[in-house]
């Protein structure tokens, strides 16, 4: 079925997609739409990085805001206190995410059960409290105000695009290799994975570190773009941690394109419903989660792919040449 589409179409589609993404902010000059596009890309990054760990490796985190906020505070503080340039600071933000991930993974991945998922939740709450109370360093609830770096949205857009692309490429690269097979095996059955020679603790840690790196970079980016952060925003359970899960689950866990679709839906819906429900617009998130889990547990991409072309399938799989022949 997929074979009929052929390679030519896929390359054509890819070129077209890249052209649209690169040309979007030049053609669409509306600042509000550009802003939405930037948020879309930010959510692609966040959803994809959560998905690598949660969707592929099956290690659900309820507190990825911990990494997001860690990245945001690291680059912002480096700039505010030491004058360290904020865009290279994104990289250091990412590294800070990894440094946070290491002990967490080390403690939690030895254990089975819900420990990791909820320890992440506890960690992000812990960091929120620390940033709130350590006023000498973080200004506490006052937050950190950064100068805007660009007047135009264009540079912001392209940086967000680069970040989202890097996250997706890293995921694609990992998932298409031995690591990807191992992560899936761990998700599917940990006992079997161990009996087959997989150091499950190590591979989960690898997925966590990569995931934390990109989530933290996204946090740094958010700080630079919004030019303001405070603890309740960047360590928000619902607006960051749960929204990340929603993006991945809605789009399709363990699929490369799921988070892209999920991000599109979330950004559109939350803009649409903000007007109706005001502060309670998150009720939409709740209803969405319930509906998706009950009626479409494979997510949008996952459900479509079950009937659709092979390259969409929610597995790393042997999309490798030859798998579908003979």
């Amino acid at each position, binding site marked *: 079925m997929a074979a009929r589409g052929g390679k030519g179409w896929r390359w054509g589609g890819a070129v077209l997609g890249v052209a649209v993404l690169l040309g979007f902010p030049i053609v669409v000059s509306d600042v509000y739409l550009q802003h939405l596009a930037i948020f879309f890309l930010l959510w692609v990054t966040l959803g994809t990085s959560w998905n690598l760990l949660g969707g592929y490796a099956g290690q*659900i985190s309820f507190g990825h805001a911990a990494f997001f906020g860690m990245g945001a505070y690291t680059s912002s503080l480096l700039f505010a206190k030491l004058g360290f340039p904020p865009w290279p600071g994104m990289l250091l933000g990412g590294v800070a995410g990894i440094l946070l991930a290491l002990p967490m993974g080390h403690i939690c991945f030895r254990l089975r059960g819900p420990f990791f998922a909820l320890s992440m939740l506890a960690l992000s709450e812990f960091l929120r409290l620390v940033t709130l109370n350590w006023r000498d360093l973080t200004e506490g609830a006052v937050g950190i105000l950064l100068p805007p770096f660009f007047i135009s949205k264009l540079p912001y857009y392209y940086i967000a695009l680069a970040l989202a692309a890097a996250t997706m490429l890293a995921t694609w690269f990992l998932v298409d290799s031995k690591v990807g097979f191992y992560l899936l095996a761990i998700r599917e059955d940990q006992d079997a994975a161990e009996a087959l020679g997989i150091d499950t603790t190590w591979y989960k840690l690898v997925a966590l570190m990569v995931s934390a790196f990109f989530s933290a970079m996204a946090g740094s980016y958010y700080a630079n773009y919004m030019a303001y952060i405070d603890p309740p925003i960047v360590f928000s359970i619902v607006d960051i941690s749960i929204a990340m899960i929603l993006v991945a689950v809605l789009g399709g866990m363990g699929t490369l394109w799921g988070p892209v679709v999920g991000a599109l839906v979330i950004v559109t819906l939350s803009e649409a419903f903000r007007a109706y429900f005001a502060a309670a617009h998150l009720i939409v998130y709740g209803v969405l989660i319930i509906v998706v889990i009950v009626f479409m547990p494979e997510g949008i991409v996952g459900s479509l792919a079950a009937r659709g072309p092979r390259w969409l399938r929610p597995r790393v799989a042997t999309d490798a040449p030859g798998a579908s022949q003979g």
Partner: protein
Amino acid sequence: MAEGQRKGHMDLTILLQTVLAGVLVGGLYGLIGMGMAINFGVLRIINLAQGELLMVGMYVCYWVFTLWGLDPLLSPVVTIPFLFVLGVVIHRFLLTPLIRARALPENQILLTVGVGLVLTNAALLAFTSNYRTITTSYSASLITLGSIAVSLPAVLAFGIAMLVSSALWLFLMKTDLGKCIRATAQDPDAALLMGVNVERISVITFGIGAALEGAAGSLLVLVYYLFPALGGIFTLKAFIVVVLGGLGSTLGALLGGIVLGLAESLGAVFVSTGYKDAIGFIVFVLMLIFRPAGLVGKARM
């Protein structure tokens, strides 16, 4: 010299008072955690809407008090059945289909996240984000023991929490239904073979887990203020309590609650109020590192 002695005496008083306050609030934490523990025992998943159920219980208590003047101490007769039914409905219409479809545990947990979000935001729509408190005739009363003073509502809340916990324990140990719940928690397959209707037990247990939050909500209203987003905070506290006690152990949860209450109360006085909740997290991490099976549990790794 005399100055120093008096200071020493003061410190001791503060310490005793702090410990007492910690134990009293810990009893409530224990009750909140028990709801999560009993659900975990049977469902094998953490219900992340547990704190939100507590929040609903608190609002029910608040409204029956405000509208009809029902004393919070008597309100469990309303909150317990109300939350039981809510729990049964949530399980029957949302969780049961997932369990029948053998959905991944992660998906079941995510579902409870969705339920929690809906409950919180429905409360936000209905009652706004304003903080509310209940003022009863005894709200400001103190009990003094020498130089130590504790608030009467906290003592009453603790007492009733212990009463409810004992009732739960007796129910689990002595009644047939309780035995079925324990058998299911121990080994669902074996329970099924013994003729236990595991699905029905699962629904009832979820109802009981919710009802416990109803009872806890009625009591928490006496010592805490009420707002829609409170659920998340208490879900996390309940989880820490449950881990401290050993996943799924109801008695352990009670102990875990008291440990958390003590840690928070001592931390607030001797470290800083702002870090109170962070101390709970530190205790939790230490626990994960050194005794992941909980304070009373057997290691199973």
